């Protein structure tokens, strides 16, 4: 009955948008975000928005050291994003990166604790790497196998696996800290298992690995047969089956790959960045990386850009909080508004809003 009234606004899915339109929508989004942010900054905190934006910029760019740290944190986020890309492209909702990274980190830390100083360094690094990749792969394989064989819900399964990993880490940390109040750095004295310094920083190795994987994963998804299988399974499992693809095998294989790369990230974080482990080693990046992978539509080069944007916002928010003595809720809102508009712009790239006009049009068939 109400079907005869045309709604004020309805949305229609666009076809593939031209590049210019995409760029325009995104630019408008950033501009609007800056305007809304300016209003928030001016009316809530009473500061000059332009000065605050400059400060935000300083969070990443004021000193070479800060830029270097931003790159280090970008590497962690991007690596997890790359690890998630094949799983998400297959429409396998792997919410378990956090746990897969933690398991890799835990395996690395365990090797450092129990074999540090007892075997030659080269052997130690190799053992750390193998253990981490295996642990991460295992944490990816389990939900993958259950999905492929028993059709379990992978979202819940991978999510739950995170909690198991967190508790395992908490338990080990509690054992290793002994009578001290915290674990501190592992092998503090011998520095066994700490990555060697490259261009002055241990974590530069992480950056190099991340850069390599950007290219490798791009090629894997784009040009390899396995990458094609992933794409087909992601579009439609039935089509894949019809084309003779063993869907179960692809799911398990892809989840092992995804988990293994998460485990590798755990290895790089512990050896190159932290030299210790805690339940916050992954630091929520396992979830943030989903945004990275999804926004970039699994194009690893875009993923690097989006990771940079997220890290830039995070560092900027921290700097705003510190410079103006704001509590971090206020600065998180400032960064959050920008992120909100950028995420929102994706909607307008994929859909077109149509507003009610005076003319009488035939409406959709189904009114209810």
């Amino acid at each position, binding site marked *: 009955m109400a079907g005869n009234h045309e709604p004020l606004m309805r949305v229609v899915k666009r076809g593939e948008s031209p590049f210019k339109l995409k760029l325009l929508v995104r630019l408008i989004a950033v501009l609007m975000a800056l305007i809304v942010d300016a209003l928030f900054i001016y009316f809530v905190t009473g500061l000059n928005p332009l000065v605050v934006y400059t400060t935000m910029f300083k969070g990443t760019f004021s*000193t070479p050291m800060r830029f270097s740290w931003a790159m280090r944190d970008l590497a962690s986020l991007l690596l997890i994003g790359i690890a998630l890309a094949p799983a998400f492209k297959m429409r396998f909702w792997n919410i378990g990166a956090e746990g897969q990274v933690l398991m890799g980190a835990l395996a690395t830390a365990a090797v450092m604790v129990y074999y540090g100083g007892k075997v030659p360094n080269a052997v130690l690094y190799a053992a750390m790497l193998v253990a981490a990749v295996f642990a991460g792969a295992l944490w990816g394989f389990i939900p993958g196998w259950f999905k492929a064989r028993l059709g379990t819900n992978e979202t819940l399964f991978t999510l739950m696996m995170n909690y198991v990993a967190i508790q395992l880490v908490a338990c080990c940390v509690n054992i*290793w800290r002994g*009578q001290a*109040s915290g674990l*501190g750095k592992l092998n503090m*004295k011998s520095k066994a298992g700490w990555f060697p310094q490259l261009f002055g920083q241990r974590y530069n190795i992480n950056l190099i690995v991340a850069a390599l994987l950007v290219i490798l994963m791009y090629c894997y998804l784009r040009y390899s047969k396995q990458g094609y299988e992933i794409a087909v399974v992601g579009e439609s499992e039935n089509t894949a089956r019809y084309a003779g693809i063993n869907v179960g095998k692809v799911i398990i294989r892809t989840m092992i790959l995804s988990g293994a790369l998460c485990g590798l990230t755990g290895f790089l974080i512990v050896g190159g*960045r*932290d030299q210790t482990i805690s339940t916050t080693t992954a630091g929520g990046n396992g979830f943030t990386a989903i945004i990275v992978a999804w926004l970039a539509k699994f194009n690893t080069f875009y993923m690097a850009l989006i990771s940079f944007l997220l890290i830039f916002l995070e560092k900027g928010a921290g700097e705003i909080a*510190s410079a103006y003595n704001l509590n971090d809720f206020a600065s998180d809102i400032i960064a959050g508004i920008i992120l909100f508009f950028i995420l929102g712009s994706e909607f307008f790239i994929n859909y077109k809003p149509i507003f009610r006009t005076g003319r009488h049009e035939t409406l959709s068939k189904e009114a209810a």
Partner: protein
Amino acid sequence: MKKFIALVLACVLCLFACSALAADLKVGVILVGDETEGYTLAHMNGIKAAAANLGLADSQIVWKYKTPEDQTCYDAALDCIGQGCNLIISNSYGHQTYMVLAAEEYPDVTFVAMTGDFAALTGLDNFKNAFTKVFEARYVSGVVAGMKLAELLETGALSPEKQPNSFDADGNVKIGYVGAFDYAEVVSGYTAFFLGLRSIVPNVAMEVNYTNSWFDIDKEAAAAEALIAKGCVIIGQHADSTGAPAATQKLLDAGNVCYSVGYNVDMLPTAPTAALTSPTNEWSVFYTELFTKMQNGEEIAADWAEGFDADAVAITELGSSCAAGTAEKVAEVIAAIKDGSLKVFDASTFTVDGATLTSAPVDMTIMDWATMTVAYEGETYEAIVDGAFEESTFRSAPYFALRIDGITEIK
């Protein structure tokens, strides 16, 4: 002549450089919390007071709030150095292992890890620890609680008939303590509190309930509630929130006989009739001394620990519920601690496993527990000197970790 002029010029330049260095004190402050958390607030107030004493400008202090005890602390230290800081202070114990890394890399910058315990063992002359002798203030807060307990027993407000579960099988009055972790710092503190209390009321038994967190309002409230449900009449605390005093106030209002001794900050706004007092640190004493020495280019000791003697510790305003005569007794006890006639850990006032202590070797070695190896080799000292356990003299961080008779820990 040219040489002479060159020499004079060089000397003048040096003088300028030195005076410039002294005036250019810039402090980086790495804090585990922010002003919403009592322990950190006390440090912030101490640093601000010291800065005001010495006329430091706001721009001479860089604040890093909510810094966890991980790599973030190291980054924060380096970021402060990047902003020109030549003195870096961290306020939580766990920051220490990250501060030492930065200290190794930047020998020209002075690092002070507050409450840390291995600065003297590292051999670095730019890495320091400091702590107050807060156990002295805890002893005095125990005396305040003891006075209250004595009054309750005398007036009959507390008796086996009225509140039977407040007395154990041996007729001891039950008291409770909410502790953060089972480290020496906490053990030393609750033992001092207990001994202070027992110096007034001899027949008491204390239970310690651990929360395994330095700041958790809900856990601390739950721990206090559990202790009061068991019959504990006094609730002491070594944790940083207002959870325990608030819970004690609630149960006092509900008709229980129970009172609270807080920590760090005055708990009267939270618990107007349940709070008796709180032992606190006067951090401004240390920070003023530190900033002055930095400005004058004087040597800073690897360990700094002061108590009532230097007014580095205190108890907050006595609550209205405190027993009559408490203020006089407190003044008397503080005077006795100052002149040395009263020792907090007097070995004749407690026993361990039923025996009086005649010897207590304490090992300063810092272990890497994960690999069971020695991280920093330290000496072993005999802590019993002239019949008392010497706390915070061999290093600033507490090391009294003996479990004395009369106290039970619940884990």
